[in-house]
């Protein structure tokens, strides 16, 4: 998975460099899958910001008279074991999805990019040291690495997001290091150096802009995985805890009512599925546009 | 006169790509007699490889045979079912390719790739087939055939790989072998050896050979008869000596002019001006007209009317207005 992702990210960089971002976005707007994916993601962001203003019920309001009611006109997605409105909870839950995207992915990307940059452009002992750490992190299966980090940090919503972020670091670091090593060889970088530009100037002016596009492509692969992992941790009880309406956490109790009230599982489960599908649709479309082989 | 082994009439193979239609082969007529070596020559892009692949019915999408007939050994190849055609391939018509090293399966032992023919096509057991394979390797001049049979393709040189391809192609004693640029990718020093081997093996088995090449030197060495292709059509067919002595078509004359002669004081490298037309437009008149240095001799007819195939004697055909008896009269009148 990740080696394929790295390869495609590097290929796509060349296309963006040739065609430019504006062209890329215009192509993206022509793709139906991208528009569908984009609309869902936009909706999730709107929910994350303003859901409390428009949800039909208080997502935390317990109503024991109204327990496990199937979907109806009053409760479109039904109610859970405490009589809470599932639609309201699912909509509010979008904020956890957006939080994971923001926090986990920015930890993974920022630390990973930083490590990749210093490994690629720093002295060789630093490169060796960083890459050893990266190799060790990659020696763990992704979920096991998040579990190990959770075991160190202790289980909670925030620690789950941080652990998913840390587990994502090595992918970005490896990508960026390889890119930096490649870009360093190019003539204009040699020319900048000959003109007396310092390493910091070279990094900011020559290397980062080049690497930015491949980071975005890699992100399109990594973001859905991070969201899945965070939801899984909550589902295992190691992330967000009830009564928080995080989708993974909502499934913990819901699954005990699978026989009698399937909708309590279906609502949060489908919410995760649809949002990750949306991210993948967007990512696929982006990579299709940028795939040099598809033309 | 014996019946030809292969006769192609009005063959049209077009490519339906994203950028529109490409008429790679557009009305090819060709005959191959039993035991004969036919050289099929032309510049790259003239449709000679596509003609060869059409005979095998191995044209890849988006290409498709859209017209004409291909008769082989009293059968219409284009009306055979896919599995009947698969039976014909290898056993009756075999083919070897330009890049021998990548035409062998990289993860299969060389001997196995030959033996496979005997096992799958002739129902031989493993041991007997393997023995046959080693015999064939020896016959195509591979040293230490037992050891080489156990080798993988990447362990062979280009020349050896092409010898293996020849062994595979001739393993079932086909009636016709199509060799598509068989020596182009090889070192100059082994080209002649492989050509000689090809001719010798075909003569020994009585197999007809279609030698597809852009290299007239190769044709002079091996072929009995030559067909020159230009822009998806055969423009001239003649016995090899006749073609080299008295080429009829201006294009053939141009090609002959562009053979570098080894040891000659001045290389006779005459370039034909212009490029092969892209084959995507609808053409009026002769396809060579735009590049032809002799079109003025027959007036504007070349640009407006496509020349027919004109017979000029036994086994001699030209697609050019210059060969038209009427044109010859006109020329005489002018002179």
């Amino acid at each position, binding site marked *: *998975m990740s080696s394929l992702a790295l390869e495609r990210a590097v290929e796509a960089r060349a296309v963006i460099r040739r065609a430019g971002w504006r062209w890329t976005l215009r192509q993206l707007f022509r793709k139906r899958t991208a528009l569908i994916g984009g609309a869902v993601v936009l909706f999730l962001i709107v929910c994350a910001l303003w859901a409390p203003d428009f949800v039909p019920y208080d997502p935390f309001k317990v109503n024991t008279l109204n327990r496990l009611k199937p979907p109806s006109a009053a409760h479109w997605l039904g109610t859970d074991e405490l009589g809470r409105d599932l639609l309201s909870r699912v909509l509010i839950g979008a904020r956890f999805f957006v939080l994971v995207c923001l926090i986990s992915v920015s930890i993974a990307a920022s630390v990973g990019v930083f490590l990749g940059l210093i490994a690629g452009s720093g002295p060789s002992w630093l490169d060796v040291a960083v890459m050893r750490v990266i190799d060790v992190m990659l020696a763990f299966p992704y979920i*096991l690495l998040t579990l190990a980090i959770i075991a160190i940090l202790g289980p909670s919503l925030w620690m789950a997001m941080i652990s998913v972020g840390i587990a994502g670091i090595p992918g970005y670091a490896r990508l960026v290091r390889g890119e930096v090593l490649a870009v360093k060889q190019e003539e204009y970088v040699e020319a900048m150096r000959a003109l007396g530009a310092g390493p910091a100037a070279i990094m900011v002016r020559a290397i980062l802009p080049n690497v930015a596009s491949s980071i975005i492509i890699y992100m399109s692969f990594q973001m859905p995985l991070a969201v899945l992992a965070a939801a899984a941790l909550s589902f295992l009880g190691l992330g967000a805890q009830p009564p928080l309406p995080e989708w993974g956490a909502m499934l913990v109790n819901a699954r005990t009512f699978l026989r009698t009230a399937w909708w309590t599982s279906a609502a949060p489960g489908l919410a995760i599925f649809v949002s990750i599908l949306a991210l993948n649709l967007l990512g696929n479309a982006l990579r299709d546009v940028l795939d040099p082989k598809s033309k | 006169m014996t019946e030809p082994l292969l006769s192609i009439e009005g063959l049209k193979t077009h490519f339906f790509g994203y950028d529109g239609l490409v008429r790679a082969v557009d009305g090819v007529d060709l005959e191959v007699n039993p035991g004969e070596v036919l050289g099929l020559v032309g510049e790259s892009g003239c449709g000679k490889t596509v003609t060869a692949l059409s005979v095998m019915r191995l044209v890849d999408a988006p290409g498709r045979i859209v017209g004409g007939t291909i008769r082989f050994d009293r059968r219409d190849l284009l009306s055979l079912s896919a599995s009947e055609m698969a039976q014909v391939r290898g056993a009756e018509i075999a083919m070897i390719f330009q890049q021998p090293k990548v035409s062998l399966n990289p993860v299969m032992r060389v001997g196995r790739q030959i033996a496979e023919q005997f096992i799958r096509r002739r129902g031989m057991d493993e041991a007997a087939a393997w023995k046959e394979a080693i015999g064939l390797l020896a016959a195509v001049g591979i040293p230490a055939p037992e050891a080489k049979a156990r080798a993988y393709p990447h362990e062979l040189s280009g020349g050896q790989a092409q010898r293996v391809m020849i062994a595979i192609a001739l393993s079932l004693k086909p009636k016709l072998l199509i060799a598509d640029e068989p020596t182009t990718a090889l070192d100059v020093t082994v080209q002649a050896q492989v050509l000689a081997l090809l001719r010798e093996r075909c003569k020994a088995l009585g197999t007809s050979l279609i030698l597809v090449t852009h290299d007239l030197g190769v044709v002079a060495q091996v072929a009995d008869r030559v067909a020159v292709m230009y822009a998806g059509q055969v423009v001239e067919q003649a016995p090899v000596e006749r073609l080299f002595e008295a080429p009829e078509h201006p294009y053939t004359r141009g090609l002959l002019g562009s053979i570098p002669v080894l040891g000659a004081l001045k290389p006779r490298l005459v370039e034909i001006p212009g490029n092969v037309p892209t084959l995507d437009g609808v053409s009026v008149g002769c396809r060579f007209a735009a590049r032809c240095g002799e079109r003025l001799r027959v007036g504007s007819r070349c640009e407006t009317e496509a020349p027919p195939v004109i017979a000029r004697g036994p086994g001699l055909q030209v697609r050019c207005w210059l060969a038209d008896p009427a044109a010859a009269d006109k020329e005489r009148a002018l002179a």
Partner: protein
Amino acid sequence: MSAYIARRLMLAAPVVVGILLVTFLIQALIPADAVNTMFQGQLSDDDAAEAIKVMRAKYNLDRSWFEQFLIYSANILQGDLGESIRTRQPVIDEIGYRYLNTIQLTLASLVIGAVVGVLTGIVAAYKKDSWLDVTAMTIGLFGISMPAFFFGLVLIFVFAVWLQWLPVIVQGWQSLILPALTLGLIEAAPVSRIARSSMIEVLSREYIRAARAKGMSEATVIFHHALPNALLGVVTILGLQVGNLLGGAFIIEVIFGWRGMGELAVKAIQWRDFTITQAIILMGAGTYVLVNLAVDILYTWLDPRIDYSAT
């Protein structure tokens, strides 16, 4: 070949030290109150303080980190995983059978994922751009977007509740069916994508055209000439996929009550039973490293073009 294996093992050595270091961090960075809470409410404050001191000495928590790490590594390398903080039983007794259960689930899912994934990949590649291809790839996209834990619930609902083909509580090998199916079908999605692109690439190669020119039947061309080459592409990512499966198994075990390492890991993390957690993470990562090593060696064996005596 043995030289290649030896060199690969040497490359793995620093990684093993790194893994030990990470699992050691679980015990080193554990907040002090983890030990304290074990005795809370059970003993008087003075007795608890004394017990905590004994405990800390017992697990060497009172020594320097460096000493602790050396002791920890030495124990692990001698095969001593310590004893559970919670049950005081040797860790090996707690997780030995669970390790085998997890491996069993992982292997079963791997087989399902590989067979389903490779077969759909082949069909999709062979019928590229047909409705079959589009359907297979759409399902594949759904597959990579589907959380394993939700898919498990869907399968339970469909097979046990709705169709009532399987009882929810099953015994013996039958209890493996649903969890292995859940994980295997999820896994088939990425495998089919890779098999498809690998197969499409192979089908465009000259040797496939040459095989057809030899008169091989389409079935022979696909299964004997194209597939072995396409599988090489699948094998390269097999190691990574085993990592995904191992991680996936941890989650699936919780849903199906499959008594594997994942089910225990979740409890151990919540109970702060760090010796168990350490051992589980260690065995998971160790298995993953070994699998990758095996895949590398398998690959050099499968692909005759790789010369393992060089570099």
